[in-house]
C-alpha cells in the first residue's frame, strides 16, 4: 500500500480520483495548490505524488524543485493536458518522474502507481516464482498441479478441488481463473456459511419482495460470475435437500431467481472445493452422486504441505517478503530457521505456516534484521490433525521415533525420567537416543 499525495485544483476530479486510488488499495491525501502540497510533504512521508502541471499558485515544476531541495524521495507523476511535456521532463527530473496525459483512465493511475510500488522489488531478486501469479512451490506434486491447472484452464470443465484444510484451495481456484484469461471476475461463496433459507438467494439471486427483507432485486453468484469463475467453497456442507436446485442449474445452465419467473442463462465455470476425503463423500451421504459428477468433471487433489516439504523455504520466503513490503521492514531468514520450518509437521498446512510466520514477524525486534522464531509452533488444532497426518508413507522409522520422543517430552515438560516411563524405555536409552538425534529443546 502506497502513501499517495494528489495535487490538483479540480475538486471534482480529486474526489473521484481518491475513490479510485483507495479502491486500488492505496492511501491518498489531497492538496489543491502548491502551498497545501508543501504542508503535506512537511508533515508526512509519501511514496508517490500525482501532480497537476498547472496549479493556482504556480507550476507543478515548482513542487518538483521543492521535493529535490528537501531531499524527499517520492516518485512523481505529472498530470498534464499535453504530451509535449515529456520533452521538458527529459533530463530535467531523472528517472523518478513520469507523466500521464488527461483525460485519465484508471489503468493510467494503476500503471503509474505500480512504478513506485515495484521500486523495492530490487531487493526481491531472490523472490520465488509465483506460478499463475499466486502459487508457490517447485516440488514434484506442485509441478503436477500446475500441469493440471494449465490443462483444465483450456476447457470449460467444472473442477472440484480436494485437499486438507489450509492447503490453499481458493488460491488454486484463483490460479485456474487467472489461467483462463477470462475478463469476467471470479466470484467466491462459502456454502458452509449460508443458512438454509439464504442459499437459494445467494446462489440464484432474488427479485424485490421475494421474501421479508428482500428490499431490492439481487443477482446471485451464478449471474455475477458472468463468463468468469464461480468458486463454491465447502460445497459438501450444503444441505442435501438444497442440492437438487444446484444440480438443475449445473445441468441446464439457467437460473431462476427466488420469487422470479424469468430464466437467466449462466455461463460460468464452477470450481468447487471440499476438505472431505473421497471415501467420505461416497459413504457419508454428504454430496449427491449426480451433483458430484457434475461438479467434479475434473477433480484435483491439492497436496498437503507434509508431501512437499521442500517448498516450505520458498513459501516462507514469499510470506516474509510480503510482510516486509507491507510493513516497510527488511527481515530475512537464516538457513537454520528455514530448516526448523521445514522440519515442522504443519498439520494446518500453508495456512498454519503463514500464521506462524506472521506471529514470528510481529514478535521480532524491528531494529534487528533477523526474524525471531518461537520455541514451538503448537496450535490448538495441531493434535487433532496430527493423529491422521503424523504417519505417512515415505517416512523412516527413525523419523517417527524422533517425533514420538519430541511429543512425549513436550507432554511432560521435558522431564526425561517421566518421558522414558511413558515411552516404555529406560532413561539411559532415552538419553542415548537424544544424544544420537542431537537433543532438541522442549
Amino acid at each position, binding site marked *: 500500500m502506497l502513501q499517495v499525495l494528489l495535487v490538483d485544483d479540480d475538486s*471534482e*476530479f480529486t474526489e*473521484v*480520483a481518491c475513490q*479510485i486510488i483507495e479502491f486500488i488499495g492505496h492511501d491518498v491525501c489531497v492538496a489543491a495548490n502548491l502551498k497545501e502540497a508543501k504542508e503535506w510533504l512537511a508533515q508526512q512521508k509519501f511514496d508517490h505524488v500525482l501532480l497537476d502541471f*498547472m496549479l493556482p499558485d504556480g507550476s507543478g515544476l515548482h513542487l518538483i524543485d521543492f521535493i529535490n531541495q528537501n531531499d524527499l524521495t517520492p516518485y512523481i507523476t505529472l498530470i498534464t*493536458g499535453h504530451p509535449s511535456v515529456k520533452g521538458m521532463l527529459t533530463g530535467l527530473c531523472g528517472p523518478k518522474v513520469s507523466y500521464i496525459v*488527461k*483525460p485519465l483512465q484508471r489503468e493510467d493511475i494503476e500503471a503509474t502507481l505500480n512504478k513506485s510500488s515495484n521500486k523495492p522489488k530490487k531487493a526481491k531478486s531472490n523472490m520465488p516464482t509465483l506460478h499463475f501469479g499466486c502459487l508457490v512451490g517447485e516440488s514434484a506434486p506442485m509441478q503436477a498441479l500446475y500441469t493440471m491447472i494449465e490443462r483444465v484452464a483450456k476447457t470449460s470443465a467444472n473442477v472440484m478441488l480436494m485437499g486438507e484444510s489450509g492447503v490453499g484451495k481458493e488460491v488454486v481456484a484463483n490460479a485456474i481463473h487467472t489461467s483462463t484469461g477470462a475478463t469476467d471476475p471470479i466470484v467466491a461463496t462459502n456454502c458452509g456459511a449460508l443458512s438454509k433459507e439464504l442459499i437459494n438467494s445467494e446462489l440464484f439471486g432474488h427479485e424485490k419482495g421475494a421474501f421479508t427483507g428482500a428490499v431490492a432485486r439481487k443477482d446471485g453468484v451464478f449471474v455475477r460470475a458472468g463468463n468468469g469463475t464461480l468458486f463454491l467453497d465447502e460445497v459438501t456442507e450444503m444441505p442435501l435437500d438444497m442440492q437438487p436446485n444446484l444440480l438443475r442449474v449445473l445441468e441446464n445452465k439457467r437460473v431462476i431467481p427466488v420469487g422470479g419467473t424469468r430464466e437467466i442463462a449462466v455461463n460460468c465455470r464452477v470450481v468447487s472445493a471440499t476438505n472431505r476425503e473421497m471415501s467420505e463423500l461416497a459413504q457419508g451421504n454428504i454430496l449427491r452422486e449426480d451433483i458430484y459428477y457434475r461438479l467434479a468433471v475434473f477433480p484435483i487433489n491439492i497436496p498437503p504441505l507434509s508431501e512437499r516439504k521442500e517448498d516450505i523455504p520458498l513459501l516462507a520466503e514469499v510470506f516474509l517478503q510480503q510482510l516486509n513490503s507491507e510493513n516497510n521492514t527488511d527481515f530475512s531468514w537464516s538457513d537454520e530457521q528455514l530448516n526448523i520450518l521445514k522440519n515442522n509437521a504443519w498439520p494446518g498446512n500453508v495456512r498454519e505456516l503463514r500464521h506462524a510466520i506472521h506471529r514470528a514477524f510481529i514478535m521480532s525486534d524491528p531494529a534487528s534484521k533477523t526474524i525471531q522464531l518461537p520455541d514451538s509452533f503448537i496450535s490448538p488444532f495441531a493434535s487433532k490433525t496430527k493423529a491422521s497426518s503424523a504417519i505417512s508413507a515415505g517416512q523412516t522409522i527413525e523419523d517417527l521415533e524422533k517425533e514420538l520422543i519430541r511429543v512425549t517430552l513436550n507432554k511432560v515438560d521435558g522431564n526425561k525420567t517421566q518421558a522414558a516411563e511413558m515411552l516404555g524405555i529406560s532413561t539411559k536409552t532415552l538419553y542415548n537416543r537424544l544424544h544420537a538425534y542431537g537433543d532438541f529443546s522442549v
Partner: protein
Amino acid sequence: MNQADNDINQLIHDTRGPLNRISMQAELIKMVLENDMPKEKALVAVNKIIMACQDCSKSLQDITEFLQAK
C-alpha cells in the same frame, strides 16, 4: 508565444478539465458495476458526467467564438 496563443491554450485547457472528469467518473461507474458497490455512487457519477458534458460544450463554444473573432 503571443497573447492569442495563450488565450487559445487556456481555452483548450479549460476543455480538458471536464473531459478528464467525465473519464474518471466513467471509471468509477465501471468499478461500481464490476464490484457490487452501492449503485447510488454510479448515479451520482452519471449526473456529474452530464454536467461535465455541459461544461465541455460551453468551452467548445468559447473556442468557436474566439476563433471567429480572430
